[in-house]
């Protein structure tokens, strides 16, 4: 056999013995590099073909022919794996997450990311929440009322500064969406919004009745900042009721001050049930510290705004409960 014939035979033996798994590619590269070092005349290079959606990989060995040109060598041993199985993909290939009955494809997730609120929660949690809602509306395939569609589209466009047709079309082009796909996409958002509103209206009254104190209207002042600064300013908070808010102007420059009226449930937790005049904190808060004082508190009343707040709180709690019960499987962890 010629020298090159011997090299081919040896290269074939190498390829047949390489581990055909993504996790072992580094090992395969080391073995191929050692082999190449032993056959310097053929300039050997290993080509790794990592297929999507499967741990199985393929290899080729490129060799320089003695008379010039490249020889590509590929070889697979008969390991008894049938052909279609060798070329199969993981059942969830192309999918990001499964939440109960909803399988979210990577493409769907990328689309969904465009409509995430990015408020108070990680994208992971918000994607799961959206999937939970998709589970709830899976059977809802009736037409979306025109006004709901319009409201969802308006909100989406406002949120992205798409104030006219030209900017919207430019955005669609950038995202690779056709106007029809955009309409379907907005239809999906409108359905989820509509479900959320229905659920809030359904749960709100009972939530308000169960814990009306959560929906007291509370006027409060709270400060946040480094522990030393917040602790030093607590005395100023104690006299706010008597001297107005003028004392706040003297606070340490590192301190951030908020004066607001909120529903009790929307206040920093330490202030939610605090009596007027009593200083609460300092307590750890978002990497710093927080202290505050309630200026006055008005008992909850059953008006539209309060019911809406109760509905929002109830929906958040309902969703948290669903999240706890749901089966969530991330496929790309």
């Amino acid at each position, binding site marked *: 056999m010629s020298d090159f014939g011997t090299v081919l035979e040896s290269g074939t033996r190498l390829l047949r013995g390489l581990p055909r798994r993504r996790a072992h590619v580094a090992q395969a590269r080391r073995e191929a590099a050692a082999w190449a070092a032993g056959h310097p005349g053929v300039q050997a290079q290993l080509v790794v073909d990592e297929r999507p959606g499967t741990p199985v990989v393929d290899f080729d060995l490129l060799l320089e022919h003695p008379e010039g040109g490249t020889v590509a060598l590929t070889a697979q041993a008969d390991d008894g794996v049938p052909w279609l199985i060798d070329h199969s993909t993981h059942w969830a290939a192309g999918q990001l997450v499964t939440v109960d009955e909803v399988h979210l494809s*990577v493409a*769907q997730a990328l689309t969904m990311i465009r409509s995430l609120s990015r408020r108070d929660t990680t994208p992971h949690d918000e994607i799961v929440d959206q999937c939970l809602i998709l589970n709830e509306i899976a059977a809802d395939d009736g037409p979306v009322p025109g006004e709901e569609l319009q409201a969802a589209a308006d909100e989406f466009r406002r949120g992205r500064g798409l104030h006219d047709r030209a900017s919207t079309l430019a955005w669609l082009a950038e995202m690779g969406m056709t106007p029809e796909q955009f309409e379907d*996409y907005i239809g999906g958002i409108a359905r989820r919004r509509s479900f959320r509103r229905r659920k809030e209206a359904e749960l709100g009254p009972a939530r308000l009745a169960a814990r009306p104190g959560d929906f007291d209207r509370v006027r409060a002042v709270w400060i946040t900042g480094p522990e030393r600064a917040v602790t030093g300013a607590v005395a100023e908070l104690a006299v706010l009721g008597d001297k107005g808010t003028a004392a706040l102007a003297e606070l340490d420059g590192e301190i951030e001050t908020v004066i607001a009226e909120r529903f009790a449930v929307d206040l920093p937790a330490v202030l939610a049930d605090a009596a007027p005049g009593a200083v609460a904190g300092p307590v750890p808060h978002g990497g710093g510290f927080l202290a505050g004082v309630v200026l006055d508190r008005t008992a909850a009343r059953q008006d539209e705004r309060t019911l809406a707040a109760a509905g929002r709180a109830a929906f958040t709690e309902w969703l948290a409960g669903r999240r706890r019960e749901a089966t969530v499987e991330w496929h790309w962890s």
Partner: protein
Amino acid sequence: MILILSDRRDDAVELVLPKLERRGARVTWWDPGDFPARGRLTAAFAGGGHRIVLDTGAERLDLSEVRAVWRRRPNAPAPGESVTEPSHRRHAIWQAEFLLDGVWELAPARWLPSRRDVERRAHNKIIHMAQAAALGFRVPETVYTNDPAELVPAYERAGGDLIAKQINSDEFTVDGADHRAYTTVLNRRHLTSRHRLQHEPVILQPYVPKAVELRVIVVGERVFAAEIDARASRTARDDWRHYDDDRVRYAAHRLPDALERACVELTASLGLTYGAIDLILTPDGEYTFLEINPNGAWGFVEQRAGLPVSEAIADWLVAADRAVDRAADNAVDRTAGDALDRTADHAAGDLADEKDGRS
């Protein structure tokens, strides 16, 4: 009396049940997977006749009163948890399957889509593809083979646009993880492992260019066609079972009359009263047959394309139920089975015609 044989979590049954109730039908939904663990079944022969009683745990059913059976997605029989020795479990399942097959054969009922053995035969792609070709469907040049030497010629005949599919779906794992063999579009890399073909046969077909894919649902003599346009989806464009609903468009589709009749004929010729036929409409307007699933999914055809399949199934079951009753009153001098089959077919057809407004 209508008997539905299916898993208790079957959404398709949930879609049809309210329609049956609206039609005043008496319905029992039972999963043979409950037998023999919880259900009790007795076939008693005496005095030249027989009596078959099914006790589901919730009710006792005289199977001679069952006129229509919808065999949807029943689970296989399973013994109770206290039967733990594997060979005992296998033995119990084997006995249970025989009793079930026997009593279903004796029940004087019309079946949707068919009894188990007929469905199994019709499900075989080789059998139904031959039948479709015989009925004039356009069928892609197809090779079923485990001969490695067939791969490269098929690839070349297809001009490099070759797909591979499995002959029957089944579960398997790779490195312990569940994998699927979806429709695979071949490239030259696939040819380099041709020896693997020897281990199990596959289907090789030229890639059929598609304007849209179609799922055609046949219920008795009624036909519903949904088009599935997956061209906008990178995930689903080669196999819509990847389900990418944001990018896949579903819509009702009007088939040419002759093709619609051929779909009914194909279904009936396989001994079925229901079938889900997959076709491709090519960009040049040709309809190409892929396969028929005797119990294939139709929920998305109703929900995404707005086609009233559940109503049609309810119509068929109720018509079969009532037709058999009428026929049983009249058919004293005829062979019961044949006469009942014909009468039920006609009754279902009449009802379908009424709903479609056809004369």
